[in-house]
């Protein structure tokens, strides 16, 4: 560092002077030492280079003491330049007041339902198309809804390739009543639910793998940042026309901890994707509730229909036990102590206990079935984490995950695109059969221009 002129480093200044005096006395001796030290240093550097895993921070720690020694003893040595050290500098984010929603021109409603009122809009200044989500304001006795605040907070924290990007928050005129706060998010053409409804066939196995990898990488990111999504389902998973999937709707999301905070609400996650421990009324839960939902989504992608369509909580639990077997003290220690488990009367017949996932998905490979079974473990402890899921052999075996660029594209319902209908005639109706009047029909034009066509070996090119 620069010469010790600062008033915060008096002792250092003295030290440097002392060192200089000392240096003059023992210059020869020191030069010898220096040589040896350099050799050691080089050795250390070679070792360091051999460790590719060592992180930036570790490297700094290794390097720093070396530099310090240089500073205190050999300041004037010509061949040891006193390099300024590079400190970590962050670009500090800023804050500013919300813009007005009039900066956006609304184009059309996307879907009104589970994820609030979402419409497609264009920013007037840039022409960019975005999704505008109007926040639901339910309980105004407590001021601005905490769920909406959490949604904004968690979405802002989640900058990830597979999480929808929250650009900003804009407000309308009547802010005092909190009735008009909008989230400006990137627009994606599809959501997985609507997309599947319109598809004739389910996704191919290779496509399912790609989707699952993207989904679990997003979930891994969230869990790494101590966020639980708590409402994973196909309608909350958006997709663009480049095969990229993005997680959306953080209306249920919240921060958690380890151990999990007490007294979390069990009323989370849409019923069909709700984990059994939530249905049994636990109030301390964590990452496994999201992983259960991922399992349900996996099953849904395979069959193109939601896996566990219970009519109510009890029916949902019954459907789960039907698919995954009946929990026992061995397979799920302690489940009987959950609040709602006391009223549960389980059959004891052994043949109903096993999981039937393997037989329900006959076309799934062994690894795939193993992954699905582990995701749908009744015991939350046994479900894999998102990171473990990503490392599963299912994603390594053939067919390999399809490249996102190779994904098929679909007409976007949200963008008001329609599938081009191939006009096909409808079936004949009862009544008078239409007659063909042979006198007025002229077929002579059909083969006109045939002689103008180029004829080749295997196919014909029409030149008109």
């Amino acid at each position, binding site marked *: *560092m620069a010469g010790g002129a*600062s008033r*915060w*480093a008096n*002792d*250092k200044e003295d*030290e440097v002077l002392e060192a200089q005096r000392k240096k003059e006395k023992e210059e020869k001796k020191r030069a010898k030492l220096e040589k040896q030290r350099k050799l050691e240093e080089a050795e250390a550097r070679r070792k360091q280079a051999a460790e590719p895993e060592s992180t930036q921070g570790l490297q*700094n720690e290794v390097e*720093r003491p070396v530099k*310090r020694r240089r*500073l*205190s003893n050999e300041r004037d040595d010509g061949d040891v330049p006193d390099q300024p*050290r*590079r*400190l*970590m*500098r*962050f*670009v*500090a*984010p*800023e*804050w*500013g*007041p*919300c813009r007005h929603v009039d900066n956006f021109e609304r184009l059309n409603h996307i879907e009104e339902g589970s994820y609030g009122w979402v419409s497609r809009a264009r920013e007037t200044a840039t022409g960019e198309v975005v999704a505008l989500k109007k926040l639901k304001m339910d309980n*105004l006795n*407590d*001021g*601005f809804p*905490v769920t909406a*605040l*959490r949604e*904004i*907070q968690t979405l*802002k*924290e989640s*900058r990830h390739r597979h999480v929808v990007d929250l650009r*900003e*928050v804009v*407000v309308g005129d009547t*802010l*005092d009543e*909190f009735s008009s*706060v909008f989230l400006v998010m990137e627009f994606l053409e599809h959501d997985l639910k609507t997309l599947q409804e319109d598809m004739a066939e389910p996704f191919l196995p290779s496509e399912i793998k790609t989707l699952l990898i993207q989904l679990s990488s997003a979930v891994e990111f969230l869990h790494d*940042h101590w966020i639980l999504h708590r409402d994973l389902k196909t309608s909350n998973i958006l997709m663009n026309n480049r095969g990229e999937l993005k997680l959306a709707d953080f209306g249920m999301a919240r921060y958690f901890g380890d151990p999990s*905070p007490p007294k979390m609400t069990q009323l989370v996650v849409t019923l069909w994707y709700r984990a059994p421990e939530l249905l049994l009324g636990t109030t301390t839960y964590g990452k496994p509730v999201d992983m259960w939902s991922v399992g349900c989504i996996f099953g849904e992608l395979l069959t193109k229909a939601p896996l566990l369509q219970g009519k109510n909580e009890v029916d949902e639990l019954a459907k789960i036990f039907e698919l995954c077997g009946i929990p026992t003290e061995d397979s799920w220690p302690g489940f009987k102590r959950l609040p709602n488990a006391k009223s549960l009367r389980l059959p004891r017949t052994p043949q109903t206990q096993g999981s039937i996932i393997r037989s329900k998905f006959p076309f799934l490979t062994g690894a795939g079935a193993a992954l699905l079974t582990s995701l749908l473990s009744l015991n939350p402890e046994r479900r894999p984490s998102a990171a473990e899921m990503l490392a599963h052999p299912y994603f390594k075996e053939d067919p390999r995950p399809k490249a996102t660029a190779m994904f098929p594209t679909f007409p976007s319902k949200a963008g008001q695109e329609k599938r081009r209908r191939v006009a096909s005639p409808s079936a004949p109706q009862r009544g008078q059969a239409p007659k063909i009047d042979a006198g007025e029909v002229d077929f002579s034009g059909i083969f006109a221009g045939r002689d103008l066509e180029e004829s080749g070996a295997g196919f014909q090119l029409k030149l008109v």
Partner: protein
Amino acid sequence: MAPTPNQNSQLVNPLATTAQLSSSGSQLDGVPADLEDSVRFAGASLTQAAGMLLRLPQEIIAQAVVLFTRFWVGPEGGSLIEYGTEIVSASSLYLIAKLSPYPKSPRQILAAYAYLSSLPTSLLTSSLFSSKTPENPDAYYLSEGTYLTQRAALMKTESHILRVLGFNTHVALPYTLCINYLQTLDVFQHPQASALAKRAFAHLNTALLSPQLLYLTHQPPALATAAIYLAAREVGVQLPDNEWWEVFDTDREELGFLVVGLLSMESFVKGEEERWGEGKGRGKVPMTVEAVEAEVERRRILEGGG
């Protein structure tokens, strides 16, 4: 080559821009800068005191103080002529508590503020728990009508805070970093270690009230480093005699600035007590729109007369 961090990282706070620091809504409305400093200081201490009364953890209180401070900054920030300090303080605390694991109801918040404003002094830093409870409970009784009006104001102000801050409620704090750094410096073997940690925390708490807006101009790592540096000097713990602060990404200049800022707090608070202390000078710090307007008017007349 500055990395762009995650917007809500625990290491990074949004910082005030130069434009935001050079002007404020209050100054545009004709409030003198020194009065603004006094009111902001009193409001920050009020938030701290209310948080303590409500038994909120210090990290929640600190977040509320930072949010409160951010609200007043910049030409687009709140103006003392438009928003009452007390209600903005209450709303910041309410908002942050709501997001935390320790939510407080509007009634709890408003009762705490009613009690605090019934105290004879508005400088609550030192004398909060030593000063006597007002003898007449009527002074801080919150009637149902007052409660309903104030609750409406609380909600309204909350929405204004959110709008002014662009719904950015993220506050990163230096406390855990401070402990982490002390561990890295390996001082916990030292017999004075806990005194050192306490002193460093005290500095971090004091910095929340700084008129130099240290939490709005410096990142948590720098604040933690400066607090440790100063505390080690005061407690007499020997730290490594090289540029250890650089390990924590703080350069000498920034460290020096922060240390001076922290040291200046004592005289600043003394000055405030001289001016606004109990029985001294001008009485209570103006904490409502009306009081601030009256104070500005009074100064104008004094200047005109003198």
